[in-house]
C-alpha cells in the first residue's frame, strides 16, 4: 500500500509499505478514504515529540471502510463505513470505564502519562496512523463508529479530532451563562472551541491569533470578536481593557507547544527542544483570565518541562483544566448539534491534498501558506 512516512524533522515522503495485519482478536483493518493533517502532526513533523521514529506513518484523523475484522469483533463487519476517533483505547481499564478514553492504560507501553494515539510517535504507543491506504484499528468494538447515512464524509473526518476537541475545550472551561470567553488560537481546534462556547451560553467570545485570514474565519464562522496580538504591545493588557480590567471568566489555550509571540520561548522549544513546549499562549491565558477563573488547555505540550507562570496561576486561584479529548464521548451530542444545523464542521476545510502530495501538504500547513486552515488528505491517484 501507499503510506506517508516520516524521514526526520521537516521531511516526509510516500512509500510502499505492507498492508497492516490483524494483530489482536479485536482488531480491524480499515481502508482509509479520507484523512487529515492536524496541528498536532506539526509537533511531530518539527521533531518535537520524543521517540518519533523514522519510518512511522502519521495520521490520527481518518474515516474509511472496514476491510477485515479479527475473530472477536462483534459490532463491525467488512464493508462498514467507519469514523475512527484519534484515541486508541480499550474500553475496560480503570480510566476507560469512567469515560476517560484519552487516558487508557491498556494501549501504550511506552508511557503511562499518555494514552494511545494513532500515528503519534512511540510516546503515544507506536501505532502507525491513517495517512495511508490502510490502517490497523485496535479495539474495533470500542473506538470506531458507523458513519450515519445523513453525514458527509468530510464532516465525519472532522469528528475524529478537531471538532470534538474544540467542543471539549469549551466544556473544560465550565462556562456559565454570560461568561466572557477568550480563545487563543484560530486554528481548527480554536475555531471549534469558539463556536462551542456559544452553545454553552457564553455572553462574549473573543479569539486571538496573528494570522489575519484565520481571524477572519473566527468572525464569520464562529461569530467571535477578534484581536491580532501583533497589533498590541501587550495582548494581556489589551484583554484587561476589553474586560473592564476584570479579565475573562474563561480562557481556552488552543495553540499548544509551538506558540508564537515571544522569540526566545518559541526558539527554545520548537527549534532547540529545550522545553516540552513554548507556553506563550498558556502564560497569556493565565495572565488574562480573571482571578478565580478557569483556564482550559487543549493545546498539546510535550512531556518535558515548560516555563509556565505557575505562581500567577496559584496567586489568582485559577482552575486549570486540560486533557486530550475523549472523542467518542462527544459524538452523540455533536451529532445532534450538526443535525440541528448549529454546526457545519467542514466549513473550515480549505485544502484537499492527494496522499501522493502529502509532503507539500505538510509544508503548506506548517508554514501557513495559501490561507490554509484545515487540510484533508484524499485517497486516490495523483
Amino acid at each position, binding site marked *: 500500500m501507499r503510506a506517508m512516512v516520516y524521514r526526520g524533522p521537516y521531511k516526509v515522503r510516500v512509500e510502499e509499505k505492507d498492508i497492516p495485519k490483524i494483530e489482536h482478536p479485536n482488531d480491524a483493518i480499515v481502508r482509509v478514504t479520507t484523512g487529515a493533517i492536524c496541528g498536532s502532526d506539526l509537533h511531530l513533523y518539527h521533531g518535537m515529540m520524543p521517540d518519533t521514529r523514522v519510518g512511522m506513518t502519521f495520521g490520527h484523523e481518518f474515516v474509511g471502510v472496514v476491510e477485515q475484522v479479527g475473530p472477536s469483533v462483534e459490532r463491525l463487519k467488512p464493508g462498514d463505513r467507519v469514523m475512527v476517533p484519534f484515541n486508541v483505547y480499550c474500553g475496560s481499564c480503570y480510566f476507560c470505564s469512567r469515560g476517560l478514553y484519552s487516558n487508557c492504560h491498556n494501549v501504550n507501553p511506552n508511557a503511562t502519562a499518555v494514552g494511545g494515539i494513532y500515528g503519534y510517535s*512511540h510516546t503515544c504507543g507506536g501505532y502507525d496512523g491513517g495517512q495511508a491506504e490502510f490502517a490497523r484499528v485496535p479495539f474495533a468494538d470500542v473506538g470506531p463508529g458507523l458513519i450515519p447515512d445523513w453525514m458527509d464524509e468530510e464532516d465525519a473526518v472532522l469528528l475524529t479530532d478537531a471538532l470534538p476537541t474544540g467542543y471539549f475545550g469549551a*466544556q473544560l472551561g465550565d462556562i456559565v451563562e454570560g461568561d466572557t470567553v477568550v480563545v487563543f488560537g484560530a486554528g481548527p481546534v480554536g475555531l471549534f472551541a469558539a463556536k462551542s462556547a456559544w*452553545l454553552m*451560553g457564553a455572553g462574549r467570545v473573543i479569539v486571538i491569533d496573528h494570522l489575519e485570514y484565520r481571524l477572519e474565519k473566527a468572525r464569520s464562522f464562529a461569530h467571535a470578536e477578534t484581536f491580532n496580538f501583533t*497589533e498590541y504591545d501587550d495582548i494581556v493588557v489589551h484583554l484587561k481593557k476589553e474586560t473592564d480590567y476584570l479579565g475573562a471568566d474563561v480562557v481556552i489555550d488552543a495553540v499548544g507547544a509551538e506558540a508564537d509571540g515571544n522569540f526566545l520561548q518559541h526558539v527554545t522549544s520548537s527549534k532547540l527542544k529545550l522545553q516540552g513546549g513554548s507556553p506563550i499562549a498558556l502564560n497569556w491565558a493565565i495572565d488574562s483570565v480573571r482571578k478565580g477563573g478557569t483556564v482550559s488547555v487543549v493545546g498539546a505540550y510535550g512531556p518535558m518541562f515548560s516555563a509556565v507562570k505557575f505562581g500567577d496561576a496559584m496567586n489568582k486561584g485559577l482552575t486549570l483544566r486540560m486533557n486530550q479529548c475523549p472523542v467518542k464521548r462527544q459524538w452523540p451530542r455533536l451529532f445532534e448539534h450538526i443535525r440541528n444545523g448549529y454546526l457545519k464542521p467542514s466549513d473550515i476545510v480549505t485544502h484537499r491534498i492527494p496522499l501522493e502530495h502529502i*509532503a507539500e501538504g505538510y509544508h503548506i500547513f506548517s508554514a501557513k501558506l495559501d490561507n490554509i486552515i484545515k487540510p484533508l488528505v484524499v485517497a486516490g491517484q495523483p
Partner: protein
Amino acid sequence: MSEIATPYIASKTTLKRSAEDLRSQIPGWGADLDPADRPSYPRENPGIETGAHWDFPERQPEKWPRERSVEHAFLPPVFGTSTPPAGVSGAVRKHAYKYSEGRAAHWLLLIAADRIDAWEHHLRSFASLRPDNPVTETGVLSEFSRGGLRSRFGQKRADVNHQWIDPIIVGGPWALAAGALAAVAFRTLRKRRRA
C-alpha cells in the same frame, strides 16, 4: 462601563447583548447551558457503556522485546508495532526506557535518539535505490505554487521572525556533510598528486 472599573466594586458590568439577542443571532446559543447536557460533565462517568466485552483484553503477541515505561506494572495487552528499535538510535532508546517518565534523562535521551535515527536513515538511504531528497521531502516547492511570499509578507505574522531557522535546521547538516565530504576528497586528491 461604570466610572469605577469592575474589579474594584461588587457588581459585574452587564453584557452588551442579552440572552434573547444571542439566542436569535447565534445558531444553537445556549443549547448546552445545562451542564447535564455536556458530554464530559462530570469528568468521570463510572460504568459508562464503551462496547468492551471483556474485563481485561486478550494479549497481543509480543514479537520482539517491546520497550516499555518502568511505570507500567507489565506490558499492556495491546500496543503499536511500528518501527522496532534498531541500530545506534535503537540502543539509545532502549537505554532511555530505563529511566521513568519523571526523569529528564528519559526524554532527553529519546530526543537525542530521534536525531541519530534520522541520520542513520539518511546515510542508509544513499546506499539504496531511493536516496533522501531534501527538496521533495520537505515539500518546499510549494513555496512557489502556493504563494510563499504573498502568504508571509505584508501580513502581520509573528512567525516570520524565526522561519529563517527552518532551512538551517533542515539544510545545515546536509551542507556540513557535503562540505566535509568535499574537504576529504580535496585532501585525498592533493595527497595523491604529491605522491
